[in-house]
């Protein structure tokens, strides 16, 4: 039901603090620390970071993301080889059993190209994560400042 509501709206902005610290579960997967950085205008791409814990015994993989906030959301990985940074498109991000996989600064990240509107600090927007086996789950992504290094959560996980 919630997904239908989210899908029916072109752009949903939720107010509220510390949403990045909320945990959403999907079977054996739990998803938290969903955050982004504010953007200057809408022409530069935004970022999406999240942590996925797989408490099950079966490996899974994040194969895609979708969001009403951007027309072209993609999974990327920052790779530094020979001193040169590149951001290849990641076909999927492994979510191995018994481990926490992080999309975090300097590594895997969602790249939100062609934003619907600029992301402002304090806003939030939904992102649907698409897993190879577990299916789909939608999380609210908290927009932190352009200088943020991540959300501060009590659990510190």
């Amino acid at each position: 039901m919630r997904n239908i509501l989210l899908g029916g709206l072109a752009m949903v902005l939720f107010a509220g603090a510390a949403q990045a610290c909320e945990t959403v579960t999907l079977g054996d997967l739990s998803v938290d620390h969903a955050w982004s950085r504010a953007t200057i205008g809408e022409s530069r791409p935004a970022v999406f970071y999240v942590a996925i814990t797989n408490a099950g015994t079966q490996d899974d993989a994040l194969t895609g993301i979708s969001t009403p906030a951007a027309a072209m959301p993609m999974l990327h990985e920052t790779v530094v080889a020979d001193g040169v940074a590149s951001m290849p498109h990641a076909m999927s991000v492994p979510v191995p059993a018994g481990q926490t996989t992080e999309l975090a600064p300097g590594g895997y990240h969602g790249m939100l190209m062609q934003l619907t509107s600029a992301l402002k600090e304090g806003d939030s927007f939904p992102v649907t994560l698409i897993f190879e086996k577990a299916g789909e789950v939608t999380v609210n992504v908290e927009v932190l400042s352009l200088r943020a290094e991540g959300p501060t959560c009590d659990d510190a996980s």
Partner: protein
Amino acid sequence: MRRRQLILSVAGVTAAAAGTLALGAWRSNRDQPVSGLPLPLTAMTWRLTDHRGTRVTPADWIGRPAMVFFGFTSCPDVCPTTLIDISGWLEALGKDADRLTVALITVDPERDTPEALADYLAYFDPRIAGYTGSTGDIALIAAEFRARYEKIAQDDDYTMNHTAGVFLFDPDGRFANIIDFHEDRRFAVPKIRRILI
């Protein structure tokens, strides 16, 4: 007076020749890693415009230690990460870092105009300056730094691969050290202190 002009013009020709050679090396090695270290600032010949619209040459950086890195402002992960790291280093160094030239050279001059750089840098430490120019200007400074960059098409958009290290120069313009991408602050800050002496 005439003698001085002659010396200056000889220096100019020599510098231009060095730049041409460097550019030639860059072009012929486009598909291979460019080996070697940056030239001393005194041997560089580039001219760029900073985010305030001021024309700058390497001579303007001589006399102060310099910290220089390549990047652009339309990447959501590496660019803010590097600028956040550098802002953190400058904060750790405090007032000592006021003497430092801190330069972001864009590898994406098409989008990074002086105004675009100014908008972006407003969110980070005010001691970080941005530099841009024509595509030829950027090719020249990259060649003189032995830095690499490449435009990567992404559907109807594009992104840039680029050398991610931070180059450190002594006040006399000699290349001193490199800080790697996302290097721990405990290692980065002492490297910067060494050029501040």
